[in-house]
């Protein structure tokens, strides 16, 4: 008689993981680049897509042979894309000790599985490895079919890849901030990724912009205007957008702050720019934001203000302040 009853369905993700806030890597002091990265990358971006698997009727020794040949420490048991269980190195060792290595995988596989979904952010996967101490997690898609497998090595490799891309981009922009020869004008360019609902870090970019401008000895009145615009735009990205980028550039005596997001877009831009307009909920208000003054305030401190938005695409807000030269250059 074959013991092939359907395994218990994989348990749902643990509730504290589902909120995404219990991640050990996510502290207030992690670099923004890393935070943004582990939110932006999905499990499917880092997983191994071609999964070696066995069917339930395959004997355990065959699973053992495959594991040895492919240098893997666990094999999912799959039929027609459905995940039934997993045979791990430990299962094999037990089978050898217990003398049942010739029995089918379906009898002795592990059926209590913790799985990831392919569209979860990478931060979930990191959290799962912290929480469950498994060497690997099968990855299911929305139709609950097995589409990949993730081990810690996959995450390390993907993060290193992405970080190296990010660093070369940052190095390029640093290179651009140093003018080829020392002219009469200061040129600077900085980019700050901003994540949705990341209240802990909201304001850091504007703080950094203000500090940098004060260090370069720009007139304090001008610094304040730029800082206010940057702060409001940064908060807007946190509160209202699905995340985006705050770019700040100084050149030819002008400061330009651009907030560009990836959605959801604003239906009625004129309405959004009105005094007292707000779509913020009570929770956001309780944090002291969302009084509906944001864009009005940006406009107030800007010499030039532009907003373009498309529903489903995103919003770009540009604030220009004529700051003149640093006080030292004026002397």
């Amino acid at each position, binding site marked *: 008689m074959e013991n092939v009853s359907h395994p218990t369905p994989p348990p749902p993700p643990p509730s504290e993981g589902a909120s995404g806030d219990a991640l050990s890597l996510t502290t*207030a002091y992690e670099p923004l680049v890393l935070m943004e990265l582990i939110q932006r990358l999905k499990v499917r971006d880092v997983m191994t897509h071609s999964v070696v698997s066995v069917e339930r009727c395959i004997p355990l020794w065959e699973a053992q042979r495959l594991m040895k040949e492919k240098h893997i420490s666990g094999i999912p048991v799959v039929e027609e894309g459905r995940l039934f269980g997993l045979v791990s190195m430990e299962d094999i060792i037990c089978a050898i000790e217990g003398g049942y290595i010739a029995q089918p995988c379906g009898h002795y596989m592990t059926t209590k599985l913790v799985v990831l979904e392919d569209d979860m952010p990478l931060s979930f996967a990191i959290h799962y490895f912290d929480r469950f101490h498994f060497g690997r997690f099968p990855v299911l898609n929305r139709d609950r079919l097995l589409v990949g497998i993730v081990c810690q090595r996959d995450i390390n490799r993907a993060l290193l890849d992405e970080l190296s891309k990010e660093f070369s981009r940052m190095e390029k922009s640093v290179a651009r901030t140093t003018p080829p020869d020392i002219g009469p004008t200061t040129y600077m360019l900085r980019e700050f990724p901003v994540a949705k609902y990341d*209240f*802990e870090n*909201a*304001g*850091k970019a*504007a*703080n950094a912009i*203000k500090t940098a401008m004060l260090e370069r000895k720009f007139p*304090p009145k001008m610094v*304040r205007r730029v*800082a*206010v615009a940057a*702060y*409001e735009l940064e*908060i807007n990205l946190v509160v209202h957008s699905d995340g985006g980028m705050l770019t700040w550039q100084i050149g030819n005596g002008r400061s330009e702050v651009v907030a560009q997001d990836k959605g959801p877009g604003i239906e009625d831009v004129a309405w959004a720019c009105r005094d007292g307009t707000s779509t913020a909920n009570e929770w956001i208000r309780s*944090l*002291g*934001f*969302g*009084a*509906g*003054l*944001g864009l009005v*305030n940006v406009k*107030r401190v800007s010499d030039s203000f532009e907003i373009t938005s498309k529903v489903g695409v995103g919003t770009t807000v540009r604030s220009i302040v004529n700051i003149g030269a640093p006080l030292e250059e004026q002397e």
Partner: protein
Amino acid sequence: MTVQDAISVLNAELIASGEGLLKKVNHIVASDLMSDVLLVDEEDMLLLTSLASDQVLRTAQIVGAAAVIVVNGKSLPSSMKKVAADLGMTLAIAKQSKFDTCIALHQRMTS
């Protein structure tokens, strides 16, 4: 009245001391809505607020406030002390309500 004077009038607890501690207070702003604080065009203001969050300090830095006093004797999230130190912002906690804090400071300024 300097920030230090204000703190002693209120018998407030100093949590982080920055360069603003010795500054003269030119303007007092009482608000819990950070967008409102950003509307104020005064340097070296003293910000009185019932909001205890990192954003209060970040807002204060943006507008060049001399100090932040959190009222109602609120307990602060642990991150605030570090953020205040990072930004060089003076931070204190007053036990009184915002209403009573305003009155005490006004009396000190006009006496």
